[in-house]
């Protein structure tokens, strides 16, 4: 029974990581209907930059800030250089982001090499804490990870539901042209959204590099996770991303423990099941495609 609870906690902490990774992806899609296949590259870039800055300054916080900032900047560049110019064609935007992800992966490999990087924990988060009732020690960082994901989720919800920027974002989701006609700066809004999505990706990279480790291929791993999470949860819905992340994270960890070889199959069956019942995902809107 203890094992079950520990595995559940592991699943939830993985879900937390997936949620942070998927939320930026989902946000960008929700507002702009852009599937940014380079999202995984932004995650990896954030992790690498965070590692370099943390090494240089000796501060995890500075590293995390720099990583998020670098990914946000890269996201803005993507929007300004490419997506902005081809607003009409969704398939074309997707293809461009795939091309960018191929180039980015190769250039990052050239610069940072094939090594595995891990960010040193801030001393505050090292070690483990005893869990009440279960009587086992559990890594602090994983608990913090879950808290961080909840904070990101609540923060995003507050931003979208309660602030002016959020109102603009929601208006942009519903009717871009009308928003533009009303005199709002849609271009600026899109850049802001991309910056936010990129910062979330970069932060996901920082968290991944701290709790786990990152290496070439991490980009694909997290892109795939983000894809499945948002397919299950519904594109553009933050709540959907949370539910999707929990489903995927739990199934992966249960799979790992109870059926080690076929963990990926569980995840996949969840995706197929959801698609069969609701092609737009659990919390997605009706307009598939």
């Amino acid at each position, binding site marked *: 029974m203890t094992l079950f609870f520990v595995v559940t906690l592991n699943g939830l902490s993985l879900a937390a990581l997936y949620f942070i990774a998927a939320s930026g992806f989902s946000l960008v899609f929700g507002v702009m209907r852009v599937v940014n296949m380079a999202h995984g590259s932004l995650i990896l870039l954030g992790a690498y930059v965070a590692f370099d800055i943390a090494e240089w300054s000796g501060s995890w916080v500075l590293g995390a800030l720099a990583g998020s900032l670098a990914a946000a900047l890269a996201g803005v560049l993507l929007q300004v250089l490419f997506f902005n110019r081809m607003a009409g064609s969704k398939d*074309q935007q997707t293809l461009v982001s795939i091309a960018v992800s191929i180039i980015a992966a190769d250039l990052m490999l050239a610069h940072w090499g094939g090594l595995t990087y891990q960010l040193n924990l801030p001393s505050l988060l090292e070690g483990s804490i005893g869990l009440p009732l279960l009587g086992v020690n559990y890594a602090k960082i994983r608990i913090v990870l879950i808290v961080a994901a909840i904070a990101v989720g609540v923060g995003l919800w507050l931003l979208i539901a309660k602030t002016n920027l959020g109102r603009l974002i929601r208006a942009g989701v519903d009717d871009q042209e009308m928003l533009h006609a009303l005199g709002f700066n849609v271009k600026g809004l899109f850049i802001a959204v991309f910056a936010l999505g990129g910062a979330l990706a970069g932060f996901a990279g920082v968290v991944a590099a701290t709790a786990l480790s990152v290496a070439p291929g991490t980009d694909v791993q997290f892109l795939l996770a983000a*894809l499945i999470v948002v397919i299950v949860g519904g594109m553009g819905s933050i709540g959907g991303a949370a539910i999707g992340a929990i489903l995927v994270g739990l199934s992966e960890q249960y799979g790992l423990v109870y059926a080690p070889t*076929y963990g990926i199959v569980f995840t996949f069956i969840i995706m197929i099941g959801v698609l069969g019942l609701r092609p737009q995902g659990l919390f997605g809107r009706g307009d598939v495609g």
Partner: protein
Amino acid sequence: MSRADIILLASVALLLFLLPAISSEFFISQIATRVLILGIIALSLAFLAQEIGIISLAQVMIAGIAGYAIALMSQNSAGLGVEMPLVVAVVGAILAAGLAGILMGIVAQRSTGIYAIMITLATSVAFTLFARQNYQIFNGFDGLAGITAPTLGSIQLSETYHFYFLCVIGSLAVLMFTLYLRKTPLGLAFQALRDDRQRLAALGFRPQRTVVVAFGLVGLIAGVGGILLTWFNTRIAPTSIGLDVTLDVLIVAIIGGIGHPIGAFIGALVFVLLETFASDLIDRDRFNTLIGAVFLIVILLSPGGLIGFGRRVVERIPMLQTIVDFITRTKREE
């Protein structure tokens, strides 16, 4: 097939059959053969994209399923599977790919556009991970090796030139298949599906079933490519069908252009030439940057790929247009 298509196909066939007479063995085995195999797999992607407007990133996975099927039905190093007579193995492998296509179609039947891209990509990556973990059927990371092209009577198909001709025949067969399919009522239903799914449904067709059929048919094409690929490499492993290969095939299809089936082969030619001679242009390790940049430039500047580019060049130069019109004896439709 239209007159223009017949002329095109005949000249391609002539060129391919005469090629060994004018080129080196290196060119045949390392370039021409690989172009044809890559072209067949890319054609299955391009044809689906062109006819029903869905970009499927599962085509390499489906080719891989045919590869695994042929490996399991032949003698292989891992000693897995059951050895079957050649005809059974080949037909079985192609049908396995067709079935995989149908299953993929059932999963993706209600999805279009970017959703279809994501779902087929997720499926393909999941399958690769599964094949890497499974040792009972797929022999895990190592995959199945030692699979050579068979011997027909006294003809050893694994020999460089014989294998090249086999690939030529395979390519011409799938080209003819796609050009023929476009003119059939089924092909017209595909195009109607692409243009207006709802109207097709209103006319009494079942769009989702049409999607599944299309996925099944292009699965057969991918299957042909998968068998040839496995024979060419003499092995099939998760790395042969990984994400990088999937993206390569996507790049090939898009660079060539999805306006005409021949585009897949033109894209494959550009890709293989770049891959082979990249070391002369750029650091060998940075090939992905080069091909990614080419891919990016083509998407940004010529969404129709090289075929679209060629078409525009012909249209701009009246004399070329007259020559093309004369050869194909078609009146320009404007």
